[in-house]
Structures are given as C-alpha cells and as structure tokens.
C-alpha cells in the first residue's frame, strides 16, 4: 500500500487561450489525512481539485506535472483508466447539490450509480448500502428517501444525499469543493459536522477547498494557501493559524481576528434621527416577509441588520428605498413620512437615501464611463455641468481612493473592489444623509472587503453619514455597527447597541448565530458541537 493517497508534483494548468491558471503546485495527501486548499477566487483551488481527478473543465488544459492517485499516474493512464478510478478511489462533492443531481432520475438511482456502474456491488447490494448511508447521515425515512426526485427534498437533505453519493463507492479520498459556501452559518455548522463525521467514520482522506480560513481550520490537518495559481505557504493547521510565515497568510489570519470596533459613539448625534421605520409589515402575495419591524437610525450612526437568507433583511431595504410597498406601517426620513413608492417621492427624499448593492459586477452600467456613472447623480440632483461637474467627479474619485484618470475608464477594466468604490462614489454624488449597504462586501475577497469596510468607516467619520448595513457576517457587524438589529423570519429578534445585543443574556437565536460563526482556531467546531450536545442533554434529560 502506498503511503500517499494523492501526490501531485509540479502541476501546471493553462486555459486554452494560454493564460496560466495553476503554476507548479506540489501537494500530497496521506491516507486518512485532510488537506485544506484555501485562496481567493481565481487562486486555482477548484481547478486543482478537479485536476486531482484527472479532469479539466472546458477551456482548461493540464499541461505539465504528475498526478498520482494510489500510485497510478492519471495523466499517462488514459481516459478509460481515469474513469475506473473516478468514483471508486476518488469522489467529488460539489458546491451546489441541487445543480449536481440530475433532475430526471431518483436520488437512489444516482447514489447507486457509482457502485453499480463500476461493478462494486449488485443493484440490490448498492440499494441496501445506500439506505445504510442515508440512515447514518441522518436523512428522514432512509428506506423511502431514495425514491424521491431531487426537487422533492430540501436543500440540506440534498447536500447530505450528495455526500452519500460520493462515499457510496467507498473512495479513499474525497474532494470537497466549497461545500458550505452557499449556506447560512447555522446550516454551515451542520454540514461541517457532517463532513467531519464522514471523514472520521469512513477514514477517508480529503481535499477540502474553500475561501474561508476559519472553516477549513475545523476540518483540515494541513492547510495550503494558494494565490494566483501558486502555492503561498503550506503547513499544519496550528502553524498556519498561530505562526504564519508569509505576509499574505498573516493578513488572511488577521482579517477574521479583528473583533475590536472600528467606530466610536462619539460622532453619533443621537438627538438627530435620520430614519425611522415604524411597525412595518410587508408581504409577497400572501407570504408575509416583514412583521412589525421598527427601527431608528441617528445621524452618523451605523445600524447593522443581521439575518440569514430569507430573514427579510433585503426586503426591509427594498421597503425603505421604495421598491416594495409595505402593507402597513410607515417609513420616516428626516421627520417626513415617505411615500411607499420611490417614484412618488420628492427629489430631496430620493436623493437623501442611497443604496449600495451587493454585486459590483452588475451594479455599474458596463457601457458608461466611470465619470458618467458617478457624475450622473450630481447632474441629476445638483444640476452640475461642465467644469463644476468635472471637478465634482475628481473630488468623488479622490474621496473613495481612486485615481483621477479612472473617470474615462469603463467598469469592465476595473477589479471588484474598485467597482465597489465607484458604487460608493455614485452614492456619495447624491449627497445623501443615509446609505443603505446591502451586503456590499460579500462578493469580494476577504482582504479587499476589509479595505472597503475601512473606506466606509472613514467616509462616515468625514461626512457624518448614517448607514443601514445589511449583512450575514457577524464579524463585520462587530467591527462596524454602533447598533444591531437581528432579524429572523421577518421579525425583529433583538435590537440595541451592538455590544449589548451580542452579550449575555442573549436571545437564543442570536446565541445560535454567534456560536455558528467559525472562529480562527482549530478545535472550535468540536467545542460548539460538544456544547450543543451538552445543552440538549440538559434540556431533555428524560429523552437522553
């Protein structure tokens, strides 16, 4: 038996157009070991994950190096040989379970496919095995679960079913490609626990790909940091977290470590209320999305709205800006009640509340120059033109830390962080009192996100802006928000000074939220799971 399940040497992957995607990466995974691959988007981590199965996506080519799986070199093995190993020796768990299941077949058929197709088991054996797997992964009604079609079960169940599908062929190594990225923190913790259980129970090795260092620290034995297709640093989990060698790694570790607040209450003018939302209810058709939501924001203050997907936090923003009408309740801005429809609001009201969106790629018109994009609000509201307008554009660019010559460029030539700066400049151009930030950093890489947050804090200090900051990231909240509102299924669970909201006594949901945020330490997950089990045991002594 080979000591290493997977051994990659000097791997080089290029796009068909000739750009280098992965450049000279070496890695090994020992039997039963978990190697975490971490990096920003474009670091090449998913490409490496697929290459470890001898697979390259359309438009990519493996051009150099060796990939040894169980001592067999995949590149020289030929297509048929690679196929024999896929599913049986190495299996893949994708980010999106719903996209990875074929909608035309039952779950059972797809879970049995690997063992039956590769001749490991008869159909009956594979079925019995699958039912066992469903049971051990905690799926409801394991005997009947497999008869369902993918669209008939919940997302969380499908995620489990995908794990079952991957281990059905009893592989030696699993490739996890961002399995928790699309999930809420409270769901993420369950999936992480599941992955740990699989690795531990079945003794498989794993390649765990993610952009979140804290997540990978919970499951990995060793971590490899990637950037731009090259290895930055490799080490044990403890070493990377406690004694990173490279600057880049140090920044990554530090980013999540910042828990001190970047803002102070001194600049908040508590007497002056900018926005007041009073018992707002809203619905889509017959489905209620907001129930009796009330909040206030003072001048110079940041109110964070926290919640998971579906909690109604974005709907709240849409009600405030007038894109969605509330069924009852009122929104008052600078003491005036706003019309529920943004189109019926006065120019000054439209001007006073600006929105910064989540996705920098689609928040700027790709056919307009940056100058036109940020100049338009100044022209539209302020009536600026000619030299004055040009001056204003320069001033705005400077304010958000972009060079003057960006005015003539188009969004396509900018990076994500630069685009988000332009979005902020466009909001500032209207001279607003309140900016609603709808997850402005969630689409950015961590280090870039950090810079944007710092920019927002600086602008608040300089201009006395108020922010309504929508996010699912509690780390951001603790750094940025004076006050916090926790939203659960459209209802306000808790609202108050950030420090108080997150200190005991907490609402149980807030506690669950805060517990679910991975900490930058290796045994965090085990601790949380133990604490949870403990709590359950105490709450239900008879059932235990």
């Amino acid at each position: 038996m080979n000591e290493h399940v997977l051994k990659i040497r000097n791997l080089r992957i290029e796009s068909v157009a000739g750009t280098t995607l992965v450049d000279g990466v070496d890695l090994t995974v020992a039997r039963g070991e978990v190697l975490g691959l971490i990096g920003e988007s474009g670091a090449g981590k998913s490409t490496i994950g697929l290459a470890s199965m001898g697979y390259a996506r359309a438009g990519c080519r493996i051009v150099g190096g060796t990939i040894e799986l169980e001592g067999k070199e995949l590149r020289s093995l030929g297509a048929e040989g690679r196929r024999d190993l896929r599913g049986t020796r190495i299996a893949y768990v994708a980010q999106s379970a719903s996209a990875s299941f074929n909608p035309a077949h039952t779950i059972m058929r797809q879970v049995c496919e690997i063992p039956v197709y590769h001749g490991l088991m008869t159909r009956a054996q594979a079925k019995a095995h699958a039912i066992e797997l469903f049971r051990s992964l905690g799926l409801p009604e394991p005997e009947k679960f497999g008869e369902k079609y993918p669209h008939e079960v919940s997302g969380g169940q499908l995620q489990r079913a995908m794990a079952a599908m991957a281990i059905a062929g009893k592989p030696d190594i699993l490739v996890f490609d961002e399995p928790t990225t699309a999930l809420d923190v409270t769901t993420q913790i369950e999936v992480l626990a599941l992955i740990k259980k699989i690795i531990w129970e079945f003794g498989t090795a794993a390649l765990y790909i993610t952009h979140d260092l804290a997540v990978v620290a919970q499951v990995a034995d060793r971590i490899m940091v990637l950037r731009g297709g090259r290895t930055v640093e490799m080490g044990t989990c403890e070493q990377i977290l406690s004694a990173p060698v490279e600057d880049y790694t140090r920044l990554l570790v530090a980013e999540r470590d910042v828990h001190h607040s970047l803002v102070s209450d001194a600049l908040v003018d508590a007497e002056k209320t900018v926005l007041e939302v009073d018992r707002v209810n809203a619905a889509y058709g017959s489905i209620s999305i907001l129930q009796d939501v009330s909040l206030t924001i003072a001048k110079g203050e940041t109110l964070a709205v926290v919640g998971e997907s579906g909690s109604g936090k974005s709907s709240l923003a849409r009600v405030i800006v007038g894109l969605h009408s509330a069924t009852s309740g009122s929104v008052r801005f600078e003491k005036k009640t706003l019309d529920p429809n943004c189109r019926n609001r006065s120019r000054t009201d439209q001007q006073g509340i600006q929105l910064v969106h989540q996705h920098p790629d689609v928040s700027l018109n790709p056919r307009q120059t940056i100058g036109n994009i940020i100049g338009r609000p100044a022209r539209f509201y302020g009536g600026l033109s000619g030299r004055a307008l040009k001056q204003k554009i320069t001033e705005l660019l400077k304010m958000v830390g972009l060079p003057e010559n960006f005015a003539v460029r188009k969004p396509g030539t900018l990076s994500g962080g630069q685009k988000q700066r332009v979005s902020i400049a466009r909001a500032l151009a209207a001279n607003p009192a309140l900016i609603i930030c709808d997850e402005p950093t969630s689409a950015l890489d961590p280090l870039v996100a950090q810079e944007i947050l710092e920019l927002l804090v600086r602008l608040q200090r300089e201009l006395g802006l108020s922010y309504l900051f929508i996010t699912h990231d509690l780390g951001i909240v603790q750094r940025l928000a004076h006050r916090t509102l926790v939203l659960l299924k459209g209802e306000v669970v808790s609202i108050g000074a950030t420090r108080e909201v997150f200190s005991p006594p907490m609402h149980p949901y807030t506690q669950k939220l805060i517990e679910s945020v991975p900490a930058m330490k290796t045994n965090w997950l085990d601790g949380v799971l133990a604490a949870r089990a403990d709590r359950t045991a105490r709450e239900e002594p008879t059932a235990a």
Partner: protein
Amino acid sequence: MRLFKNVITRMILERVMLGILTLFAVSVLIFAATSILPGDAATAVLGQGATPETVKAYREELGLDRPAIVRYGDWLAGVVQGDLGTSLTTRQPISDSVIPRFENTLFLAGFAALIAVPLAIGLGIIAAINEGRLVDRVANIVSLGAISVPEFFVAYLLILFFAVKLGLFPTLATVFPEMGFFDRLYVTILPVIALIMIVTAHMLRMTRSAVLSVLSQPYIEMAFLKGLRRRSVIMQHALPNAAAPIISVVALNLAYLIVGVVVIEVVFVYPGLGQYMVDAVSKRDLPVVQGCALLFAATFVAVNALADILSVAINPRLRRSRH
C-alpha cells in the same frame, strides 16, 4: 399515483384550453384582416371599374352589409360545423374542395416530417456531442447552407438533376384520388426531399443548441466525475433532460414545414392546400383564403399544443410534483 394523474391531467387540460383560446384569437385575427379592413370582397372581385350599384347589390348578396361582428359570428358558427362558406369565384362550398387538398398536404408534410424529425434529432445530437469537431463543423456549414437558400432553389436543383438530367422522377407531382399508395410515394419523392432538406437543417441546428445547453449543466460534469463513460453520460444523464427542449424544437420547426409546403406545392404543381391558397390570394377569393389560413394556423397551434403536452408528460419534475 392519484396525485400524479391529477397534476398531469390538470396541466394537459390547461394546455388544451390555451390552444383553443389561441385558435379563437387567431380566427378573430384572420377574419379581421380580411373583412374589416378596406377593400372588401365585393370591390376585390368586381374590380375598381364596377358601378356603385353593382357593388352594393353584390355586397348585399354576400351579406357584407351586415355588421362585422355578426358576420364573424356566422362564419365561426359555420367553421365549427365544418362549413367554411362559399368560394367567391367558383360559388362552390369551400369545404368540399379544401378537404381533399388538405389531405394531400398532410400526406406530403407528414411524409417529410416522418423522415426529417428523426434525422434532424439524430444529427443534432451527434453534432452537439462532437462540438467543435469535424462532424459538427460539417453539419454546421451544410445546415447553414440549407437554411440560407430559398425553398424553390432546392426544388429546382432537384428537378434539374433527378427529373430532367437523370429522368428518375417526374418533374410534376401530379396526384389524383384513385392513385395507389406507392405511386403517390413515387411522384412526391422530389418535393418530399426538398422539404426534408429545409426542415432538417433548421431542426438540426436548434436540436444541437438544446442538447448543448443540457451538456453544460453541472450534473453532467458530476456524471463524468463519477467515472461514467461518455456514452453513458449522454444516454443516461443528458438525453433524458434534453427530450423536452427537443420536442419544443420539433414543434417550432414545423412552421418551416408549413411555409416550405406552400412554396414546394407551387413548384411541383401539387394539388394541396398551399397551392390552393396562393391561387385564392391572387384571385382575391377572401373566404377561401380565410378557410385555408385557419386550417394552416389550426394545424400549427395543434402541433404546438401537442408538443407542450408531451413535454409535460415526460417531465419527471411534473410527473410527481409536491403540489
């Protein structure tokens, strides 16, 4: 099982209702276009030189002096009972001459579709799974050529080579009621080939892109990563999901068959509905035009409704919906 039947039945009923509704709207449109607008049937037939008196008398004879809505009601009532009215030029009931011609057209189009549909689907799938390879490139260029040239170009080339130069087939597709089945096949072979070429090309291209869009789904990648062979991935994972889009492609492309059939019938002087309609248009025999148009549109709507129903029936998502 009961649930499955209910959902399917409901959706099929919905499609049928939608088809009937569309057909009703289409009938209004056809009637409006030919009856309410200026230049009515009387002036069309009698010509510009007719005296106002004759026009008036003729209009009364045709019932054109009554309000349009009443005339539409009468027309529709007739159509529902299978009576398409009276031809202005022959003064014969339209239904009597339309029905045998419609059968002829169905024979021609059906014959062509029978060969073209499986051919196009097969070639489209082959092109898609060989994207970028020689087979695909050849299929692309040839089908591009075939959709670019007019129907009559294909028809005349076929006549020139197979009928005139080689003398294998007749230049005209003359059929008569007493003709035997195989004689019919023989004389219609050239028009059928022309139709097949045109329809196959359109259908092939759209089938190809429908299959390609399925092949770019993540579950196809997953199937490869499970170690399945290319053949299994295509047969078990791609095609079951491509079936529904392919069915709608086929239905959509029968529109080209209808357009093609009109031109091809004229080229080969084939006694079908298309030729009859073109004849009526040049004589401005409006009731005949209305009747033919309605038949063509009804066929097209029916085929599309049928395709919709088929895609519902084969969709596993709908077969067992939670609702």
